[in-house]
């Protein structure tokens, strides 16, 4: 496998989960991915995210992709 280039995309799952009082296991069950995979995603070890997974995450957490993804160093997206 070719060496991976570093990226600055981070997933703000921690904050969204805390805001909604949801656990990672519950989110994984409702989204339909394994807790291990969701943990990989949360810790920034994932290589890519499927649009289907992103859609389900947004549906379950009732948020937009901009609330979930951010360029590290950026301020979190806020509702207008």
């Amino acid at each position: 496998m070719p060496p991976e280039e570093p990226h600055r995309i981070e997933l703000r799952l921690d904050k969204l989960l805390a805001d909604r009082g949801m656990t990672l296991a519950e989110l994984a069950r409702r989204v339909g991915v394994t807790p291990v995979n969701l943990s990989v995603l949360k810790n920034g070890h994932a290589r890519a995210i499927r649009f289907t997974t992103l859609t389900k995450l947004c549906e379950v957490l009732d948020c937009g992709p901009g609330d979930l993804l951010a360029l590290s160093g950026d301020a979190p997206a806020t509702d207008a």
Partner: protein
Amino acid sequence: MIKLRDMRRLREPLDTTGNRLIALALAACFGWAVISGAAGIIHSLGVNSLCTDTAGLLSLGGGGYVEGVGKEGVRVTTEGYTLCQEEVSTAQSLADAGLDLPTFLFMTVALVLLARLLWTAADPGPYAARVPGRLRTLGWFVLIAGPLSDLIEKYCEAFLRQSMLAADEPYQVWFQGWTQDFPFVYVFTGLGVLFLSRLLRIDVRMGEDMERTI
């Protein structure tokens, strides 16, 4: 250390010789289908006389020609198993072409779908995301178009018979004939291919998961 060439071979298990053999086999099949199908259809449309099988509906006994069974100008020959007519109408010519055309179209499209699948499996590779989708298309096509082409052929056969027989043939006769000789081979092949595509889809997803795509 794995060389670039070895990595490419891992990704593309069909080597150049394999690709060439597949291309040759496909080209031969495609050529055969086009030539034989087109020849049959052109022959059907160009003839002035044609004969059709009575599918065992008539068993008159004796040889030679029998009067009164067929419409005017129709000869019932060889112990009542074959109906022949000299002056053929356009509808009869089309029905005669319909005996070969559905299978010809089915085989041609199936070969195109198979070729498309094999090219994708050769490059970018059998575990590419597009391969299960193409396999599924082929499976659904074989499952639906196979029995359908057989049904159309049976209908054309019945139409030809009816156009030559004096007595009316109830539609149940040809439909029952189709159900009795139902081409289960297409159904089982189609279902098998669909099942395979499902397995391959799971495989591709597992491969993506292993590459940490969530």
